[in-house]
């Protein structure tokens, strides 16, 4: 095995282009997962029993099946149903749906962990539903959720290479393209690994910091 710096220099531009798509997909996927997760959590909490049970089953199903197969399913099924999406959009929907299912559980436990007395006190003060959620429940429930949410965002970021299987030209796909074209695997694959390490190690350090802050607040 030999490492060729000149070769590295020539492939950096295409890897950088892929990196931007990777970051874009992670950010969009995270935003969508937050919204979908909230939708699932609210449907399970406030919806009619049939809806709550149905959504609970969907969440279970999504969490019990591989993201890769879900991506294939979305990518190939949606055009059949007459919905044409750019691969990146299909990928972001897949990420959002998969991680939204995990995140709905974070919301759920975050809200369930609040002491009953908080609800009762809000009722005793004659606060309406909106005021109860806005001024009593959410301000206390959200901060402890932040580390778990961040944890899922980091996990999602590391699963974005799967989008290459549905023809999104993100970092992994760019690296594979370069590798197939030049028959050199060492440099592109190693650089992709280093890139992921370079983002996730600082994120984990930041996550630990968040965890400590939250622990201090709730003490």
């Amino acid at each position, binding site marked *: *095995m030999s490492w060729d710096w000149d070769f590295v220099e020539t492939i950096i531009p295409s890897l950088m282009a892929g990196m931007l798509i990777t970051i874009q997909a992670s950010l969009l996927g995270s935003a969508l997962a937050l919204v979908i997760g909230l939708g699932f959590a609210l449907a399970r909490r406030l919806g009619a029993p049939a809806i709550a049970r149905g959504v609970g089953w969907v969440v279970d*199903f999504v*969490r*019990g*099946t*591989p*993201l*890769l*197969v*879900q991506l*294939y*399913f979305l990518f*190939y*099924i949606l055009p*059949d149903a007459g919905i044409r999406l750019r691969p990146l959009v299909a990928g972001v929907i897949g990420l959002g749906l998969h991680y939204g299912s995990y995140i709905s559980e974070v919301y759920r436990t975050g809200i369930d962990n609040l002491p009953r007395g908080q609800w009762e006190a809000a009722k005793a003060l004659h606060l309406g539903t909106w005021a109860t959620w806005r001024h009593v429940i959410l301000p206390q429930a959200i901060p402890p959720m932040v580390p778990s949410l961040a944890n899922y965002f980091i996990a999602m970021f*590391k*699963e*974005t*290479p*799967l989008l290459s*299987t549905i023809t999104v030209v993100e970092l*992994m796909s760019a690296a*594979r393209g370069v*590798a197939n074209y030049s028959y050199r*695997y*060492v440099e592109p*694959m*190693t650089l*992709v*690994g280093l890139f*992921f*390490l370079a983002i*996730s*190690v600082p994120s*984990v350090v930041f996550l630990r910091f968040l965890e400590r802050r939250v622990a201090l607040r709730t003490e």
Partner: protein
Amino acid sequence: MMPGFVAEYGLLILRGLWITVQVTLLAAPLTMIVAFVAGLGRASRFRPIRSAATALIEFFRGTSIFVQLFWAYFVLPLVGLPLTPMQAGVLVLALNVGSYGAEIVRGAIAAVPRGQHEAAVALNLTRWQRFRYVVLPQAFVLMLPGFGNSAVELLKGTSIVSLISLQDMTFNAEMIRAQTGSTALPFLTILVLYYVLSAGVVAGCRWLERRMSAGLDVTRV
């Protein structure tokens, strides 16, 4: 749809299912070993061992599993370590999921109350006896729910071995799609099969948890 069609492709899916189950079963014990070695390493008295375990865990958690798989399959042969798709898949899954599992092992050991260690010291048990007969039996029960989750992650993770041409369930479904142009049926079928498998894993872990915690006064964490 013709019965012959269903029989032919059904068989292909079942053969893929068998590979998926094989990869999961081969990787599971290895995952457990990685989790214990790395988890105990992090709880070690010696700083160098702790640092080495932390580096291993952060490396495998920090780089994507997909990237690790490609690296193992395409780069290791260049340094004289050719791996079959099955070997590469099992190895990478075990190292990756095991690195997440290490945190479960470490957390469970730290959750055994201090008094238990102290009582074992007072009874003049050796370091090994304290671990083997006092700490581990209590910590292991605490690890079970976490290991259940890891087992599901492992099962779902096996789908990526299809990308290095191992003919698991996902690979064969994708092949059926390419050959027949039918999309909904193969993918829905394997989604349901994956779900049934994970539900089975979850049920098995619950059962084990009940059995192992019977008669133990476990402090829930």
